[in-house]
């Protein structure tokens, strides 16, 4: 979006069939097309910040709900190994799926397990992880996990094909296996080329590794900042947390007063170099990538580059509704805004 104003204006100007100011016309001019007038008028859209606002995407349309994704942590199928470690296994299936990203607008996404973002995988440091990947999509894909692991398990095209990994062709499968380390908030995403395209289409998810002794008890929320370029002009038009623009304006994130809230904040926006998260009426402790249990900052706005993650902790001392949004205001106005609703 940083290039939006310049490029869009330039494109508009270049494509102009009629140039700008000074030309006047009246509705009903012979040259004007007929205008159909019917009452009552149909409301086309509404968004919060606007008083009529009550519009979001029905979760049934997409088959996933941004609110459910907040607290949907998938610990996998587990079994105790002979050495005492825990084995966690998941199956991730890449497939094409049309999703609705802002009311009325469909987008041809690529998904892991039919949702964007993909399942939030969760483990404890030292667990053994196996992720069975099936490519049921229409293009070659991979799963590249952040973390510490052998090269063949990295999900990078050209690396690991000798053991069946690397680029996974349509209809093929591969099982990634590695230890869960280090603890923190990590990413997984497709690493097939063109990389930006495969990520922007929706092939990504979060991957949480808890420290062995855990973190303090909290209401934990997964917020994946993402964006979409539905007209393929190289700029994003729709921004969100957990995919659906403005969702949390109409379905506020309900939390309890004085309870510790832990936000797992991920920025997977492509095409824009930075994103941000700001909360109203409060400050939060920041744990970059969640790899330390010591907070580095006490702030109310955090800036994230592409692929950056932070664990944020805060308590709300007062009840009421508090907005959270990107402090790149353009992103906020294009969907990346929502509310916490603090209750007793």
């Amino acid at each position: 979006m940083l290039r939006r104003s310049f490029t869009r204006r330039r494109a508009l100007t270049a494509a102009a069939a009629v140039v700008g100011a000074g030309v006047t016309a009246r509705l009903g001019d012979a040259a004007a097309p007929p205008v159909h007038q019917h009452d009552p008028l149909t409301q086309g859209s509404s968004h919060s910040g606007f008083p009529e606002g009550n519009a979001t995407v029905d979760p049934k349309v997409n088959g996933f709900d941004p609110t459910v994704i907040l607290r949907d942590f998938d610990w996998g199928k587990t079994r105790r190994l002979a050495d005492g470690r825990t084995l966690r296994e998941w199956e991730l299936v890449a497939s094409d799926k049309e999703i609705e990203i802002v009311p009325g607008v469909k987008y041809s996404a690529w998904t892991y397990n039919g949702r964007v973002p993909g399942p939030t995988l969760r483990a404890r440091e030292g667990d053994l992880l196996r992720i069975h990947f099936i490519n049921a999509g229409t293009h070659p894909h991979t799963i590249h996990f952040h973390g510490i692991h052998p090269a063949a398990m990295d999900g990078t095209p050209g690396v690991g094909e000798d053991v069946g990994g690397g680029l996974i062709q349509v209809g093929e499968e591969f099982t990634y296996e590695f230890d869960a380390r280090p603890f923190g908030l990590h990413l997984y995403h497709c690493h097939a080329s063109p990389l930006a395209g495969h990520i922007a289409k929706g092939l990504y998810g979060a991957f949480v590794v808890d420290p062995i002794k855990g973190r303090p008890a909290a209401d934990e929320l997964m917020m994946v900042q993402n964006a979409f370029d539905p007209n393929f002009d190289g700029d994003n038009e729709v921004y969100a947390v957990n995919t659906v623009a403005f969702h949390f304006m109409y379905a506020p994130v309900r939390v309890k007063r004085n309870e510790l809230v832990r936000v797992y904040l991920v920025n997977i926006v492509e095409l824009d170099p930075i994103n941000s998260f700001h909360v109203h009426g409060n400050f939060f402790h920041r744990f970059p990538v969640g790899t330390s249990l010591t907070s580095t900052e006490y702030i109310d706005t955090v800036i994230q580059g592409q692929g950056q993650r932070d664990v944020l902790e805060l308590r709300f001392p007062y009840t009421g509704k508090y907005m959270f949004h990107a402090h790149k205001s353009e992103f906020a106005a294009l969907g990346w805004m929502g509310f916490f609703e603090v209750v007793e």
Partner: protein
Amino acid sequence: MKVAAVGLVAVAGAVAGLTLALAAPWRGGGAQGGDMSVTQSTLRPGSIALVVKNGSDAVARVAQVILNDAFVDFRASHLALAPGAAETITVSYPWIRGEAYEIELMTSTGRTVGYEIDEAA
């Protein structure tokens, strides 16, 4: 405002061509056939009316409106436009005299139709 007093003074903008998807393997699925265009704009206090014409051979549906990089409320008689049909989209917006506005009508497939008001009056 004088605009309101005289009723229907349209401030012309530029009718922009549609942004076409570039050829790339991850693109596709977002475009619909044919052309849509904004043929006329009319500014009244607190609103901008746009006449949009569907020049394609398929029904098109205006799902959202983006004005200066923000989704805005809008109303129309019909959101679905038959081939060859025209419709007035009325955007609720506190426009300011002398300022420029970039408007994109986003269809149900995510395709956008651009329109620019160089100097609101």
